[in-house]
């Protein structure tokens, strides 16, 4: 275990970013989001939850996949993929880190998504243990220990020090390059902090959320629950929950005509909450918002686990709890459906 004084943190950031691009929570126009660190940038490491999750780094909101050039009847395909240089993703909370596992199972499954894979492989992830989780957090429900995340390096922070533990080879390499900034020690402090954090987590209102209903009930029974109607009534069909969600991975493939003969094909985040998500020229298989709403939660709680050995596609980060304009969220769904197992 290594430690560094909090007042020296900027030196650490500068040191890392000198070597490799460093992405970490930054404050821009009042909001904390992951961004490329540059010296002098306003960091936001202490913000519990960035608005967008860290998935942006591997699965950007918008990303060019291929370009085309047309000439008369001919088409040239331009593969724009470039080698991704190693970079550091710093300050990822346990929930967001767990979300990478969820995303990996989609993007790294055969056939591999090379855009995602390249970034994922190039990245050294520095996770950051939570110190003061809040009432919307429920990562514990998914077996996540917010006080002890993994990743290539794990860090803890208190009012005086930042503590550093390397976990992997990648982590060691990173450690090596900045080792000179650190002193040894801090095991005890970390241990104390972890204990305290875990105590808070125990007390959080959602920590006792029970998902066994979804594990033990037939898919169609859950699907046919009449409560979906009421649950979805206030849904605006916006994509806030999906876009702030660390595990939502639906995307659209669109084209942009940069000029008459230059076409950029890109993919961008899409939301199953949008009314046109499944719109085809001759019909739509989900016409009501209830169906779309149900799809999102069925996917997270039933479909995805069924395909991935019981792993839920939710990590309890609580962003949707905080950000839904009308205060709908997965917790309300779980409680409403899971509360009456006898139905």
């Amino acid at each position, binding site marked *: 275990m290594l430690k560094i004084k909090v007042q020296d943190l900027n030196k650490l950031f500068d040191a890392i970013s000198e070597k490799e691009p460093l992405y970490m929570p930054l404050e821009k126009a009042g909001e904390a989001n992951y961004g490329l660190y540059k010296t002098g940038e306003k960091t936001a490491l202490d913000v519990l939850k960035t608005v967008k999750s860290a998935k942006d780094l591997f699965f950007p909101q918008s990303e060019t996949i291929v370009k085309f050039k*047309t000439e*008369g009847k001919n088409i040239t395909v331009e593969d724009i993929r470039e080698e991704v240089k190693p970079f550091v993703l710093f300050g990822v909370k346990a929930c967001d880190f767990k979300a990478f596992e969820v995303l990996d199972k989609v993007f790294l499954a055969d056939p591999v998504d090379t855009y995602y894979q390249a970034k994922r492989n190039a990245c050294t992830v520095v996770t950051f243990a939570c110190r003061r989780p809040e009432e919307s957090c429920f990562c514990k429900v998914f077996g996540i220990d917010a006080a002890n995340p993994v990743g290539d390096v794990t860090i803890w922070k208190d009012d005086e020090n930042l503590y550093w533990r390397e976990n992997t080879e990648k982590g060691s390499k990173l450690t090596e390059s900045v080792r000179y900034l650190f002193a040894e020690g801090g095991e005890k402090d970390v241990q104390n902090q972890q204990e305290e954090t875990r105590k808070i987590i125990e007390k959080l209102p959602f920590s006792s959320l029970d998902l066994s209903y979804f594990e033990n009930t037939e898919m169609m029974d859950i699907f046919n629950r009449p409560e979906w109607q009421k649950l979805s009534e206030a849904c605006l069909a916006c994509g806030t929950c999906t876009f702030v969600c660390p595990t939502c991975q639906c995307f659209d493939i669109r084209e942009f005509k940069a*000029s008459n*003969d230059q076409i950029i094909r890109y993919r961008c985040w899409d939301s199953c909450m949008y009314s046109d998500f499944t719109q085809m020229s001759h019909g*739509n298989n989900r*016409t009501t918002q209830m169906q779309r709403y149900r799809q999102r939660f069925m996917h997270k709680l039933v479909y995805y686990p069924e395909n991935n050995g019981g792993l839920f596609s939710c990590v309890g980060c609580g962003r949707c709890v905080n950000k839904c304009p009308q205060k709908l969220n997965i917790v309300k769904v779980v409680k409403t459906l899971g509360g009456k197992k006898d139905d």
Partner: protein
Amino acid sequence: MQRIGVFICWCGSNIAATVDVERVSEAIKSEPGVVFSANYQYMCSENGQQLLRNAIKEYHLTGVVVGSCSPRMHEATFRKAAEAEGLNPYMVEIANIREHCSWIHKDREEATEKAIILVRTAIAKVKLNAPLTAGESPVTKRALVIGGGIAGIQAALDIAEAGFEVDIVEKNPTIGGRMAQLDKTFPTLDCAACILTPKMVDCAQSDKIDILTYSEVEDVKGFVGNFKVKIRRKARFVDETKCTGCKICMDNCPSKKGLNEFNMNLNNRPAIYIPFAQAIPNVAVIDPEQCLKLKSGKCGLCQKKCGVGAIDYTMTDKIIEREYGAIVVATGFRPINIDKFNEYGYSENKDVITSLELERLMNAAGPTNGVLLRPSDNTHPKVITFIQCVGSRDLTDCGKPYCSKICCMYTAKHAMLIREKYPDTEVHVFYIDVRCPGKNYDEFYRRACEQYGVDYIKGMVGKVYNQNGKLMVQGSNLIENEQVTIPSDLVVLATAIEPEPSVRKIATLLTASIDTNNFLTEAHPKLKPVESPTAGVYLAGVCQGPKDIPETVSQASACAAKVIGLLVKDSLKTNPCVAQSDESMCNGCSQCANVCAYGAITYIDKEFRLGGGKTETRRVAYVNPAVCQGCGACTVTCPSGAMDLKGFASKQIMSEVEEICRK
């Protein structure tokens, strides 16, 4: 995919001297979709058009771009040529490389580059063109004239003369309008009745003209060529077909205290009356507000005395519905209310009168049988002062900002007539300036000053007040630069005129727009002065703007010409470049109808299938292609883009933008 042919015109040397036409043709060849590219000396010539036609045939062109002079010159020419070869004329686009390029640029390189971009832009547009077909709608060969004054009468007579049926709807019991109330007319001083009544009689006698007096337009539906109009025939309580106009009823009516509107309320009339001797139809009418029988059930004298049994107290308003192909609005004017003009003391002093009241006081059929007597004591006024611009060119709330146009002339007329008939009368006229453009008008005014000795005083009147039975007219004389006070016996106010207020309702019914002064707006102030923006609706007389009799009559005849031109057609070709609403996207918010100057947009309830066997009924916009003029105002008002304009679709314009910006 489209197969486009591009034709670059040299226009002799007009284009070719500055634009390298060969290079343009060559550069365009490789554009996607272009299958033919050529240039020619004069595309508009017979040979040039043949070149275009041959290429359409040979290369199976689906779209044509001509790089030539302005589309305002030859768009129609090339469209026609394309049509002759079986290509939809709206699949032709013009790139203006003469007026917008070769003529304004000197550098050959620069002009050639620009020409290429302009042609490419036209190609981008034509690729998104859709074949358009002009619709047709039948024409009902009958016209409606709203208003039976001189404007309406003249229009009706001209239309009838051409052989078309025409109805005059007049809200008063007789046609004739304001002109019938006038004594003499300027600048010739002929008697108004003598020239008007023959025309009224002509109307009555024409088998093409149906006069619906004491009637009002209640509702208008439809569009050019196909109006459906509901007309309220107010209860007259006298059977028009029976009444002979003998006036026995009038003599016997015990309720004689009704104000005589025709005489500007200067004397009284019975409850049953014929407005004036030459009224058309010469049929009595009962004023229900005044008739004892109708009010209290007691009387019935007229019915007893009527030899032909024309009186019917049980009569009620009737609504009739008729169809018309065209509508002429000729609703006329009235003098403005001048009660607010305290400075002239109109309401306090009986001897302060309006010009129209003076007309009646001087008319042989008027309350004084044509002898000029002042209302207060029926004596001859010795000093008469006229005040001009009462309420005209007045920016206060009391008056009107515009010039009423006729006042200068009729005041000169009045002054002249008085001086001629009563030479011992002293006549003063206060004026701001005298406006007499028009044939023989200024001469007329000068005669009043020079021959008849009318005292014209340039200046405004500050106050008129009664002092010992004299009306003291206090004003300024700007030329002498002094204050003057003229003790007068009679003061005549040249009152501003305003559109008859009923025009507001009619304008709403016709979706004809009205300006801030309630005058109907013409379709174009210079080039379409008699058409209203609503197709098939025409404007005659003062309802469109202040004007005198000759102008009114010419406008009425112009209207008639327009109406005849319309009615002579069996059907109307409609402009295919009109707005169209994509019902599947329209949410019926009504914003588009609000900006439509033509009333072309209505709303219908339409049922949509939602899938799963469910349906939803939604209010959606419908554009009547026969009425829409294709301006596109609605398309921008529509936030969802459900409204688009054919021929100038959003996609087309955007692709033009993209092409220009491609550089």
